[in-house]
């Protein structure tokens, strides 16, 4: 049978399954019953994206299926027909899965499956996608030829940083081998049936909404976005049935090639449908098919090293040793030295190694990375140091949190058993510093100490360096520097967004400070961070510069004409979609509510993070809404035009605690208020009701009440 006939048959199958499920759920709950996917502002994202339909009830769900989706499933002998049928199949899949969520918001609770992805999860992918830390996505469908091969393939993808979605038989296979799956390890067991692919397509659509500012209902624009910017592909194990072939047609329309080992009634299509019976060769075949090039850093350590392990959590019971800065002395430090003081690639370990300690011991550690180079600047030391967290976390079986002398590192039993020792921390730091900063670091050595006395001494010394750096950072204000920087790292996904990074306003993703931008510019003068002079000030109050306007105009390719640095109301800075926090004005109190990505609940604005976040992003300017990094909240430039951080009336409790010290210090300095954070409400005080919020603000005498109206 021809490829087209298979697609048509498969899409019919998916459609009739969807119809059956929708009819069943309507018979059970009635057509007026609400239909809502959890933790998303994009309704049923596929329906919303491709059809522009906001599904909120089961009746609407049925109508979209029987009218719109059916209409897509045309039957002409032209590629257009298999493409629209394929996309229709994906939407039908989303609808089948949605019927489960109509009955309960947690249909996959207590199963091995993940199901629906929250908007927060989609947003979390933003930064690693733009930095190419996640170079692509694979959707694995069906059982692999063997359990060993299933594990090997998933691990193979993980070790290359590819985000893995699993559907069907392969999930049982990897779980039977004891493999951990989950969003944090970038290998997600989506669901048991082929229609769970609807969750993956929903994620793709939302990436396009969030990062690409794609308009709901613009079918072509969604396909173009996924084709050009989402580096996904499908691996479908034999036997591949018609329904999977139909999903494949949808995938190919989206730009995602399908690789299969099924040869029966299968038709190869260049760069789109590739038949390779050697399933062990699939990873490389797939990467080539989707033009994904992986930057491989070969590091001489006994365990794997990949971005996929960045979110890995080591439980206490699985840990061989722990270096805990809150209990014992620990410190990490980068120091600039003279060339003659450094022997390149020397890894010096002084003191007992991990095997000298008993299981679960808390041990002290100091690791000092000495660097030199003609273009090295001491300002870069902190920039490199902040990256240690992600460098060390990429080691399989190692978990790192914190910074400076408040770090915590856990080494798992498995990593230890594989031979992981202290010197390997050195190997990783050496390799990463040399490869990522090769234009400024000529030589590098790592010194590691575990002797308690020595570490104590080094910690004290390091703190002097930290103090000096903090002094310098504190003295570094938007006024004290000569230039700002652009950051267009996100443009791969959000083509019209530009960040302007200043000392007092870091990039909205939280990952790029002014110093980072400066270092990035020196490392790659033609790269994403370009110098923006600040010689032509227009309005000091809102932070409006002619130079800045010219830069955003140029780098947004004309999409943006003007931005201000310090205002949320007048030409606020845009967002790509990967912002850490979203800030929106709360009209009743005249203040602003800030919510971070991790917070799942409601806010007094009656909107969740997802809903607030959907108001902006994709390089769109929306006065009254602004995405930003956590550190910006305590900046003296935060909402400076609107009166500053005294406008903050509500923060999630966890975020408030995280930034309390800095925020209180700034409030003291700006307004002479002590313990300002106590005046800011959180979810323990009020969740949804703005009246309740206002009552609280009045009660504590929040300064916002005496400020001018925002609008």
């Amino acid at each position, binding site marked *: 049978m*021809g*490829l*087209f006939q298979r697609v048509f048959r498969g899409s019919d199958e998916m459609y009739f399954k969807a119809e059956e499920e929708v009819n069943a759920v309507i018979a059970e709950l009635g057509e007026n019953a609400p239909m809502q996917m959890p933790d998303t502002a994009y309704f049923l994202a596929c329906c919303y994206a491709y059809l522009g339909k906001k599904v909120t009830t089961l009746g609407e769900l049925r109508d979209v299926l029987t009218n719109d989706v059916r209409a897509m499933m045309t039957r002409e*002998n*032209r*590629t*257009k027909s298999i*493409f629209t049928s394929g996309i229709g199949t994906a939407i039908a899949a989303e609808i089948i899965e949605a019927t489960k969520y109509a009955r309960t918001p947690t249909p996959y609770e207590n199963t091995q499956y993940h199901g629906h992805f929250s908007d927060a999860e989609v947003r979390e992918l933003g930064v690693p996608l733009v930095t190419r830390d996640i170079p692509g996505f694979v959707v694995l469908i069906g059982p692999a030829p063997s359990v060993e091969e299933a594990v090997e393939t998933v691990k193979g993808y993980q070790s290359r940083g590819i985000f893995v979605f699993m559907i069907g038989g392969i999930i049982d296979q990897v779980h039977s081998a004891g493999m951990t799956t989950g969003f944090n390890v970038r290998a997600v067991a989506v669901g048991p049936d082929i229609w769970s692919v609807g969750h993956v397509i929903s994620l793709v659509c939302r990436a396009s909404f969030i990062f690409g500012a794609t308009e709901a209902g613009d079918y072509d624009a969604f396909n173009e976005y996924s*084709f050009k910017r989402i580096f996904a592909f499908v691996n479908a194990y034999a036997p591949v049935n018609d329904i999977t072939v139909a999903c494949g047609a949808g995938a*190919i*329309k989206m730009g995602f090639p399908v690789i299969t080992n099924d040869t029966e009634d299968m*038709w*190869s*299509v*260049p*760069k*789109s*449908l*590739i*038949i*390779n019976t*050697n399933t062990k*060769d699939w990873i*490389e*075949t797939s990467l*080539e*098919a989707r033009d994904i090039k992986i930057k491989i850093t070969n590091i001489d350590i006994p365990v794997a090293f990949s971005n996929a392990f960045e979110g890995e959590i080591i439980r206490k019971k699985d840990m061989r040793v722990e270096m805990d800065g809150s209990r014992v002395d620990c410190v990490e430090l980068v120091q600039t030295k003279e060339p003659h003081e450094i022997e390149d690639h020397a890894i010096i370990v002084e003191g007992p190694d991990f095997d000298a300690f008993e299981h679960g011991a808390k041990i002290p550690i100091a690791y000092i990375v000495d660097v030199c180079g003609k273009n090295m600047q001491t300002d870069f030391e902190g920039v490199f140091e902040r990256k240690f967290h992600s460098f060390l976390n990429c080691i399989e079986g190692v978990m790192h949190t914190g910074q400076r002398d408040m770090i915590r590192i856990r080494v798992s039993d498995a990593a230890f058993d594989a031979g992981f020792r202290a010197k390997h921390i050195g190997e990783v730091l050496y390799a990463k510093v040399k490869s990522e900063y090769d234009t400024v670091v000529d030589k590098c050595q790592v010194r590691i100490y575990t002797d308690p006395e020595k570490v104590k001494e080094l910690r004290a010394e390091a703190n002097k360096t930290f103090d000096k750096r903090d002094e310098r950072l504190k003295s570094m204000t938007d006024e004290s520097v000569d230039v700002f920087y652009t950051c267009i790292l996100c443009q791969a996904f959000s083509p019209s967004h530009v960040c302007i990074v200043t000392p007092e306003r870091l990039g909205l993703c939280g990952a790029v400070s002014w110093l980072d931008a400066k270092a990035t510019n020196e490392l790659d003068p033609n790269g994403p961070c370009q110098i923006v002079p600040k010689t032509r000030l227009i309005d000091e109050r809102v932070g409006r510069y002619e130079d800045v306007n010219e830069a955003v105009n140029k780098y947004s390719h004309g999409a943006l004409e003007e931005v201000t640095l310090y205002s949320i109301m007048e030409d606020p800075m845009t967002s790509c979609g990967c912002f850490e926090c979203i800030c929106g004005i709360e009209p009743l109190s005249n203040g602003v509510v800030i919510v971070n990505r991790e917070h799942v609940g409601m806010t007094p604005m009656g909107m969740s993070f997802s809903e607030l976040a959907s108001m902006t992003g994709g390089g769109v300017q929306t006065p009254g809404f602004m995405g930003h990094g956590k550190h910006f909240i305590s900046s003296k430039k935060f909402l400076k035009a609107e009166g500053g951080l005294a406008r903050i009336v509500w923060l999630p409790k966890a975020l408030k605690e995280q930034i309390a010290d800095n925020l209180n210090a700034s409030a003291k300095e700006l307004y002479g208020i002590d313990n300002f954070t106590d005046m800011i409400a959180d979810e323990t005080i009020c969740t949804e009701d703005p009246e309740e919020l206002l009552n609280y603000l009045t009660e504590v005498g929040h300064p916002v009440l005496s400020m001018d109206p925002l609008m």
Partner: protein
Amino acid sequence: MSEINSSTFITLEEMEAATNRLLETAAKVGADTWQQRTKNQTPHCKFGEEGICCRICTMGPCRITPKAPRGICGCDRDGIVGRNYLRFTAGGSATHSDHGRSIAHTLYLSKDGGDYQVRDPEKLIRIAKEWDIETEGRDIYDIAHEVAETGLLEYGKPFGTQRFLKRAPEVRQKKWHDAGIEPRAIDREVSQSMHMTHMGCSSKPEALVRQSLRAGMSDGWGGSMMGTEFSDVLFGTPKPNDTNANLGVMEEDMVNIIVHGHDPSLSEMVVFYAQDPEMIALAKEMGAKGINVCGVCCTANEVAMRHGIPMAGNFLAQENVVLTGACEAIVVDVQCIFPALGPLSKCFHTKFITTSEIAQMPDSEYIEFHEENAGENARKIVEMAVRNFPNRNKDLVYIPKLKTNATVGYSLEAIKKCLDGVTNSHVDEVGTLKPLVDAVRSGVLRGAVALVGCNNPRVRHDYAHIELMKKLIANDVICVVSGCSAQAAAKAGLLSKEAKSLCGEGLKRVCELVDIPPILHMGSCVDISRMMVLVADLAKDWTEEIDISDLPVVGCAPEYMSEKAVSIGNYVVSTGITTFLGVNPYTKGGPAIEKLLQGDIDEWVGAHFVVETDMEKMCDQMIETIEQKRVGLGI
């Protein structure tokens, strides 16, 4: 660069408005144009049109009517139509093949450091090996000379058939053998055609049609193929190359030299000397900003695909370039040159320069061009044009603001290279047409159409080419084009990669992945031989080797006019590709001949002609034929 910005697409109406504006200039200067001459010649002679007028001996002329169904010698209408058809074919075959012969001569005269050199030694060695010519340890020019001589002998060898036939799939070679249409020496097929049509020789329809096919084959798989292959060896095998098209490529403030005709030997040299710093300095001295060479007709195709020289227009636009009043010289070699250019050029300052003893015309400056004096004469021609710049009458200058982008130069080698880009090194081999086979087998592409041929005042200028192409690509049918058809596409913007926006989703995706326009420019009219090797390789690269006639591919010459085009039609059909003609080849008066050409020859070669003057219908029929072929293949 011109101040005229390129448009993505240009409509037929915009082009016609521009032509009308130029016709006003013609009226002003009292110039004669083809539009007027067509009116003067209408209605055409009915007997001539139907092919039933015989002037082969002086007993006549004889004309067939119901009252006089036979000529004086007793030849019936099918005999007369068949002979005329064979002579028409032989004329085309001779013309193309003689062009090939001239290129072979040039190759024979190539030398290290000379005006003509071997630019693609790799291709030369490939041909040498194909012809069992020793290549190991030999000087490249020794090989070139032996290949050239061997090629020249193909024209007159006493025994055997054409060497290039071996390029076809075996099943096709057998079909040719069984049908008795394997061409022997090229000149012999032309001579025999003339002999067979002499008074008192053949009048049997089967014999005349069979020889027409064989004479055509000696062109397509003989002379033309040699012309193409040796041109590549001498001037480089075309690679994708960006250029511009339509009249707006002429520059108001530069010396405009138009090269027109078919043989690249001359135009290559003109292009070279137009870049000479001394010549550019002279142009500036004359008050021009520089020298702008543009092409018309197939010479344009040749220099566009090798040097990115812009294409001013096709066959029926040749008078327009002079009518702009901004043409310093129109330099012609052979074929398709209107004698009208002589008197027309006299209405302007334009120098009409003829260069070939084959194409000599009144009212022209004749600078005879030989391979031996190529450089010297080309320089002389360029200088003559440059010195003519101050004579331009500025009041008469009007260059229509029409200009498009085009990517040209998809030789078979280039197509394979592009397709390599979509292979996967883990499963595919490179250097084949297999990716194209896969795209067709899966149905993503429905098939292919080779659109070729001239312009003809019987069809609204370029209408058929452009409208057919648009409809075909919208139906996921990829097009390969050459000659004036290719230029029609270029003028309308259809050779730009942006034309993918006009495609069906399947072809659009292929264009995006392979990074090609949906309509591939394969060269000039001799380069239809490239298309023959393309289909041969496509059949060989099929999952299991099939015959060319099984492929979902058709040929189409909707606006053709020349004898060459009829010769081409004969070899394309003989190769197994059903060919659609938009103009009747003077056979209407011979029902037995028409029955053969438009039906029965299918039994010999697996393909036939379809004559259809309604372009809408023709397009539907082509798509229908393609779909039928797909059914035949079980795809």
